[in-house]
């Protein structure tokens, strides 16, 4: 059974390690914050200028001067810090943020990512995505395995204008967890519960390899 958005977020949350600073993109990545494993300390960075971002405010306590990069009202946890955009992207480029999770329209088997522009459609811009993918050493893409037309989003080469080259390290989709190996392509690491290796291979347009049997993901919460 393919994972839903929360399942993808939950699986990504297993990648978190104690003491990491994490930047979560808009969409599925935001949900990762709901599944932080117990006993580890994580701080969230939002590139508009906050470290120590907390959950959404209680109704009625929204502060227009306190938003995240998705322009959502948020809160700040004790120990938080605000800073300007130059310092924010300074810490991103200087690799002080240990993990970046973001969505994508396409990922190539070399880890190229396309997630900002569709020729012929209104282009809203790359926001901070190009800085993030060019800088982060640990980038996980959270996305559906196929697009709404059923076409694979994991390709030999991106067809859309790219956001960054050879930067994605891991992909978590509704069907699978895959690593990028510059030599071999997509390395299939895990399957969603009940999803077959054959289905994943069929829905992956890029080169895909396996190192032995592919286990099912372990999702301690129900994947719904």
């Amino acid at each position, binding site marked *: 059974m393919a994972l839903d958005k929360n399942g993808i977020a939950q699986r990504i949350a297993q990648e978190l390690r104690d003491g990491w600073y994490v930047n979560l993109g808009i969409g599925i990545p935001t949900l990762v914050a709901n599944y932080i494993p117990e006993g580890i300390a994580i701080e969230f960075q939002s*590139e*508009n200028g906050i470290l120590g971002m907390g959950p959404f405010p209680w109704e009625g306590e929204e502060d*227009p001067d306190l938003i995240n990069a998705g*322009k*959502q009202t948020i809160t700040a946890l004790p120990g938080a810090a605000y*800073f300007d955009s130059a310092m924010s992207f300074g810490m991103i480029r200087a690799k002080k943020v240990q993990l970046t999770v973001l969505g994508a329209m396409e990922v190539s088997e070399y880890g*190229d990512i396309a997630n900002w522009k569709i020729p012929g459609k209104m282009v*809203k811009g*790359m926001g901070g995505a190009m800085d993030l993918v060019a800088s982060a050493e640990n980038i996980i893409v959270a996305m559906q395995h196929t697009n709404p037309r059923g076409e694979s989003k994991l390709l030999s080469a991106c067809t859309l204008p790219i956001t960054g080259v050879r930067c994605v390290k891991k992909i978590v989709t509704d069907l699978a967890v895959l690593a990028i190996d510059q030599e071999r392509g997509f390395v299939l690491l895990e399957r969603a519960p009940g999803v077959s290796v054959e289905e994943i291979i069929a829905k992956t347009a890029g080169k895909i390899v396996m190192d032995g049997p592919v286990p099912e993901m372990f999702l301690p919460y129900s994947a719904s």
Partner: protein
Amino acid sequence: MIDKRVAHVDAALEGLEDGMTVLFGGFGLCGIPENTIAAVRSRGTKNLTCICNNAGVDGFGLGLLLETRQIKKMISSYVGENEEFERQMLSGELDVELIPQGTLAERCRAAGSGIPAFYTPAGYGTEVAEGKEIRVFHGKPHILEHAFDASFAFVKAWKGDASGNLVFKGTARNFNPLMAMAGKITVAEVEELVPVGALDPNNIHVPGIFVHRIFQGDRYEKRIENRTVRKRN
């Protein structure tokens, strides 16, 4: 103490002319210079090139200057959420240059720091890098990017004093300090103009030397773009 106060926003805009390049602080609708935007609209200055992370929404923020066709070109990192913007862009009335957000910030900071150019990895291998110098440092390709050159910077702070010192609140800081540093003439509107000496000199975000004109704004709307909340039980 060098007094930067102007009595009214109109005096703060003296010298703003058609065709100039201007910086506007803010991220989305957070921390935008509301009073100054309204005054630029009243002034009717045209053909502006606006450097701002976003382009406002329909009827608010820079959306107000799009409505009146005062903007010739936008230099931004993200411009969604604005139908009039989209219409003008698709019809070719409005020129749009999209650049990575960190590069936008650093190009402001460079302008305010006398650094004419710097290298950044952001955008390498993408269309952002087209036509730009690429150089490899420590095995990694970087792009040469240049400081902005803008006549005016319009920023909004939480508190300020007559000598131009500024303090920001929360994430309303964003691009404001960098743009304040980058303007040839920097106009700061503040929610509260406090007496000189009232701000702790340890906690000044923008020293007054960067600010040329300051005034206390009024009637801040501070619209929220994306109201997200936890429901109380």
